[in-house]
């Protein structure tokens, strides 16, 4: 009777697994709330960034430190990883073979790691050019906001690895499915935060 009902954010299992669908409601809602508190943390870091845009103290500015090419590449990579995770969610929900599911998860992981690699390269370049957080308030606020997002992506990648280990071990039992639902929420949330980052931080800094 409640099978068709949408019980929580993100993809709902619905009639494909009614027991897990039932169990998922409080679990996914709780994770959704956690994401809201995380959103507040990011929002405040954005606000701090906004107040410290001018605190360059004669050091590197946004225009000198940011590069549009790598940012565009990172954006496309992360966006595509959101799509691949969406495909993974559908595979999980509609009973695809473990290989298909693992394939989509692996694709997401590869893209996630690629994103992190590019971002680390960016930070290394900035550091080499003297754009370090110890140089100014502006750079401090950049290096709090963007690496925090990166740390979240790192945690997400670790979580992906754990899930890729658990799927062969446990199959798609309720706990594995609910964990994948939550990871999905997390991954898409990180992409939403990245939209804000590339807009407020990089593009704003590069407008001439």
């Amino acid at each position, binding site marked *: 009777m409640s099978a068709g009902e949408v019980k929580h954010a993100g993809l709902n299992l619905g009639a494909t697994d009614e027991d897990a669908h039932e169990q998922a*409601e409080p679990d996914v*809602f709780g994770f959704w709330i956690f994401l809201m*508190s995380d959103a*507040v943390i990011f929002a405040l870091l954005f606000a*701090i960034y906004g107040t410290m845009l001018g605190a*360059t103290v004669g050091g590197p500015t946004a225009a000198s430190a940011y590069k549009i090419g790598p940012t565009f590449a990172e954006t496309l990579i992360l966006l595509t990883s959101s799509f691949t995770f969406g495909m993974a969610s559908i595979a999980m929900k509609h009973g695809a073979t473990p290989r298909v599911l693992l394939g989509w998860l692996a694709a997401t992981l590869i893209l996630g790691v690629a994103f992190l690699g590019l971002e680390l390269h960016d930070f290394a370049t900035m550091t080499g050019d003297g754009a370090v957080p110890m140089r100014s308030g502006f750079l401090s606020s950049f290096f709090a906001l963007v690496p925090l997002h990166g740390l979240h992506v790192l945690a997400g990648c670790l979580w992906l690895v754990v899930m890729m280990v658990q799927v062969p071990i*446990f199959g798609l039992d309720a706990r594995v499915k609910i964990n994948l639902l939550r990871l999905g929420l997390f991954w898409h949330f990180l992409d939403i935060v990245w939209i804000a980052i590339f807009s407020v931080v990089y593009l704003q800094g590069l407008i001439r």
Partner: protein
Amino acid sequence: MTDGLWPALLGRFTWNALAFVRAWENPTVNEIIGAGAAMMVVLGAAVVIAIITVTGKWGYLWREWLTSLDHKKIGIMYVVLAFVMLARALAEAVLMRMQQAAAVNAPGFVEPDHFAQLFSTHGSIMIFFMAMPFLTGIINYVTPLQIGARDVAFPLLNSISLWLTGGAAGLMMVSLVIGRFSTGGWSGYPPYTELGFSPDVGPDYWIWAVTLGSIASTLSGLNFAVTLYKMRCPGMTLMRMPLFCWTTLCTSILMIFAMPPLTVATALLALDRYLGFHFFTNDLGGNMMNYANLFWLFGHPEVYILILPAFGVYSEVVSTFSSKELYGYTSLVLATMAIAVLSFTVWVHHFFTMGQSANLNAVFGIATMTIGVPTGVKIYDWIWTMFRGEVRFTVPMLYSLAFMMTFVLGGFTGILLAFPPLDYLVHNTLFLVAHFHNMLIPGLLYGMLAATHYWFPKAFGFRLNEKWGRISFGCWVVGFYLAFMPLYVLGAGGATRRSQAFFEPAFRPWLYVAGVGALILLTALVSLFMQLWVSIRERDDNRVFAGDPWDGRGLEWSTSAPPPEYNYAVIPAVDGRDPFYDGKRDGDVYAAPTTYEDIAVPRNSMVGPATGILGAVLAFGLVWHIWWLALLCLGGIIATVIARSFVRDVERIVPAADVARIEDRWRRMIAAARPISRHHEMTSANQGLAEVTA
């Protein structure tokens, strides 16, 4: 900064970090007090460990309490933690009062640096390690019972929150023995708490203790919100929840949204201190006002987190002990929601004097005054609840009455402070100190003490001694007035807060009165411990196993005292607001169900203790720059979380036969018990069964 003893292994630890060594090398009264406090921590821990070892209770403690995921046990442990920390912070308060009384044109006996640590620990402990655990504990115990649930939504997360809080409190206690605490107050303002002015371990202790506590509180808020949204029993719509659950819901929402700004503030300060960032430094583009803004974005909703649960308690207590339905339920709900939302709109009133324009200050001043309105609505609702009721002056009711009168006084001073021009005169004077203690003590503390007295029989199966309850109550009230009313006069007369000494002789008599008040407050706390002792000694005379000692109204009173592990053998269904009260008057509310089923309860788990202990040791490693230790603990926490995700066997079944046995025993005792009228409520005739008159 001096080099460490053995930097690679022990970071920046030196022998001089130990309070005993400092007192040995420089035996002034000041240092001896510090060493004495450290001695109490070490001896206290040793005595507790010795007692548990000698009585052979380690296994019992680990199995029945420390690894338990039962919300009732977790709630009790939170309250125990709160009382221990209350004792320490109250002692610190007495010390400060004695120092100020002695130090008018004289040096006193506590040096400025030590005094600064005292007011910093006093504030930090009272807010983060007394008040928050106290209200979290009461909410933990009561809320699932009130909504007809068997536990909170995330029992393991509940345990993790408890242990993170406990670990952080432990860190606070360690700071008495090893190193020193911050001298920057409970608010930790930079640039004073930056490396340039405070290179020592003090602010780091503060940062990590507060961070652990704030993470724990965010998780608790999340837990309670999901519990209330998703686990109410059939028929219990939101508008049929007890008021205490409504205040819990709003408190939870505040916790979820207000703790993040604190996490950001302390994290950024940590980045400044540990990695040389420039968020709040004086140089290279730092802006200290960003910190103040962040801190009070947290700090204002925080005080509403502290007070809303107390308001919920008063709603329950006033209704029960007026023998009358709560007046104006809808208005109370709306007022609670209004307070919750408005609490996010007033934070600038904590720093009116920092240079904003008059217009900006005015906006926040008006918002601040607005928040008094819903609180006033609540006061009126409680008064109307008592009106034409049959009021019984039990200890919880006495606390409620004292609250109504004293809190309103404090509220008036709040309205005064809300006027920016007036605030300019008394900001950071003892007037402000008097105001917030006037809100917190009669508001939060009386509420929590009332809650303890009210729900103790439910939790432990016997009533608390009423005589000692009254003695304690009397001391709390008299002590409060004597300790804090003079501070209004002093503050208006120009006495600055956080001052180790004064130079105005006219302050002396007021400071003496305040000192006497502090000693009476100490007596109040001691009376509470006496009350506990006497109550335990007399417990067999005061057992209320049937479970309803006060003729209660909510579902929590429909269980035995103490309730079984699973709370309800059959999840109740309700169709109104005071389901148990109505049930008593409508029919056979203790009727046994036709069948019993197996009940699943959460298995114990080591994850809570592991996270809390690893978290505290991680924090200790960060404080002392013992990087290998910090990394090890971080790895340990990550490994614990990942390992737990592989565990599938997380529940234990209580067989239907056991449930039947437990329930039948309870019903046999009800049948054998004599129902009593409210006149005999405080006698040993009260077995927890209420006489139903109509």
